[in-house]
């Protein structure tokens, strides 16, 4: 695990919270319920350690929303929710009971949209910060284990070495659903991101 300094950590959380705020506003507007999204924790890991780190917190199969982003900063972004969290989130957002995810296409689609909104908001915030245009692929949802997801990432996209794991808490209608945002980056992209984050933090003072 790559250690972030306290300053870097605080700055990253603050930035992500801006992105999450934008996502929460979109979700609130869409659903008519007040949705809060918070980032309590951020950590950086080697891609090879991510599966292990995540499997400590999500033990079941997961629903993951995957988007590839490209541009001067490039990589993969994933929102990972366990099955129960995904179903609950869908129920809370649509006010309609969810069926098992394997047969509930609507639920999968809602989760995909939530991931889409969140990933766009976070990476959009990074893009604004870095003053570069990041562009995104169409979001894709898959239902498999964390290990399988990360394994396919590693095989398909060489050069990605680091991952930012962001703990995300959705709060709505007096319930809370926990999810994880995983942003996988190359060394160069990560370096650039952290440098820009530090400078942004500096400018804020």
């Amino acid at each position, binding site marked *: 695990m790559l250690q972030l300094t306290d300053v870097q950590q605080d700055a990253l959380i603050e930035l992500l919270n801006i992105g999450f705020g934008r996502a929460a506003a979109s979700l609130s*507007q*869409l*659903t008519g319920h007040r949705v809060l999204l918070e980032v309590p924790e951020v950590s950086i890991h080697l891609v090879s350690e991510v599966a292990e780190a995540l499997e400590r917190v999500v033990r079941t199969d997961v629903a993951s929303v995957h*988007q*590839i982003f*490209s*541009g001067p900063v490039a990589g993969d972004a994933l929102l990972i929710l366990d099955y129960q969290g995904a179903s609950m989130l*869908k129920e809370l*957002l*649509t006010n*309609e*009971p969810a*069926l098992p995810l394997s*047969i*509930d*296409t*609507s*639920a999968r*689609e*809602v989760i*995909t*949209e939530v991931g*889409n909104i969140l990933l*766009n908001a976070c990476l*959009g915030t990074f*893009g604004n910060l870095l003053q570069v*245009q*990041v*562009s*995104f*692929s*169409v*979001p*894709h949802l898959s239902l498999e284990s964390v290990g399988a997801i990360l394994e396919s990432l590693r095989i398909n996209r060489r050069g990605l070495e680091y991952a930012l794991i962001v703990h995300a808490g959705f709060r709505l209608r007096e319930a809370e659903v926990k999810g994880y945002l995983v942003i996988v980056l190359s060394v160069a992209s990560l370096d650039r991101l952290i440098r820009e984050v530090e400078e942004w933090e500096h400018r804020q003072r």
Partner: protein
Amino acid sequence: MGAQTAVKTVAGTELDLVTLGATQWINDLSNRGIFTTNTALVICSWNAWLVANTGLAADCAIGRSLFDLFPSIRDRGFDRYYREALGGESRILSESLHKYLIPIAIKGVAGGVEMSQSTRIGPIRSGDAIVGTVTAIDDVTERVVMERELRSRIAALDRARLIAEENSRLKDEFLATLSHEIRTPLNAVLGWTRILRTQQHLKSRDHALDVIERNAASQLRLIEDLLDTARVISGKLRLEVRTVRFEDVVQAAIEVVTPAATAKGIPITTSVDVLPTVQGDADRLQQVVWNLLSNAVKFTARGGHINVSAATAGDSVVLTVRDTGEGIDREFLPYVFDRFRQADASTSRRQGGLGLGLALVRQLVELHGGTVTADSAGIDTGTIFTVRLPAGQSESPPKAPWARDGAVTIRGLSVLVVEDDRDGRAMLVTILKNYGARVRAVASAASALRILAGQRFKPDVLLSDIGLSGTDGLALIEQIRGAASARMRRLPAIAVTAYANPEDRDRALRAGFQAHLPKPIDAQVLIQLIDQLRPRLSAAVKRRRQTARVAT
């Protein structure tokens, strides 16, 4: 997605044209709506699916501003997705959260139902620059309908499961209540019996006997309710439908509960009109009224009052039982007629009972083609029960079979009792002797046949149990009816039995008994029944009885 398709440069323009042609071709083949715009959000392409589904020709759509063509996109706030797409973002618009992007009325469905759509909106890039947007729309109407059906089916299954669990819980609770309710009167009976046995000169002997009698009667009531419930559940409850004067039924029920009401200081006021008759089973109807009344007495505190009214309303006879008792919680109101339900199922509850009475009331009323409803404004506001029965023809009903005017006597009659249970036999003998009959009692069919064959005791009436060990009562009566002696063939016979179902009664009557009297026996009824068989008695007996009367 996002795969880097390597295209070798042939010649810029030629490649562009080929790619454009191929894209158009693919778009038109696609089973989804696909359109593109430039950065000013003016429509640049419009595929065959969109033409077919919106009815808008490509020529008419291309060159128009998207929001001018479909103002609802902007009105519903979806324009920002296009701004985001121009900023490089790809968006998915789920059906659950957006319903649709472009309003397309579903063919053949009236009332402006829109096609359910799942939409993707993304940027079109050329090198580093974004040159427009692409939108792909899927028709998911069928999927949405299927999922809705699946969801409602699963919800129905869940509800069924919850109801089953609730029923099983209620049955458990009921069993606990049942054990308690059966034990309570037994405790009183056994307790007082022991006291009577040990204390020879008990001053409160009458009180003890009262308690024993009351508790035995209450347990009998309980067991009858249970049996009735079992019959209703198994569909074996049969009504003996006759023309019934409902006011008589109401009056009889009031007479039964009046002592209990008086003891609690609760006056019962009545207003019973002259009613048309109803078609029904008088006993069962009385059970209905009795249950409602005793319920009212049970839940009304001292100082309260009960009103019973019966009137005609249209084609119905309407009975209303109104009390000033503790009322019913509005939340419990829908369940008052459910089996095993009690508002207070706690072990510390103040009122006894099995929670079967009102369930039986409803079943019995419904068997009569009527309805029963309960209403209460809530706790401590009293309760109103209303029974509606269809009115029958207003012909005058026959009197009850053994309702006779004047005093009843069996003095001087000879009665042969066949009962294998010693206590039961002794009781019958005691009752009959108290009423002045001459009695011979035997324990088996064989002994009875010996006596009948002999000359020493010539019975006027035979009382026989059905469930005798050895030859049973049915076989006995068949033998008697098949006998050579005319006296035996004509001997009036009453079955006295614990087999109390209408089927049992039919079997007994078919076998040759004139009457069927279920146990436990009410002495009055027994004597009336024997008396009712009097017209069939021989002239000799009449003479003998008249002699007996003169003698007294």
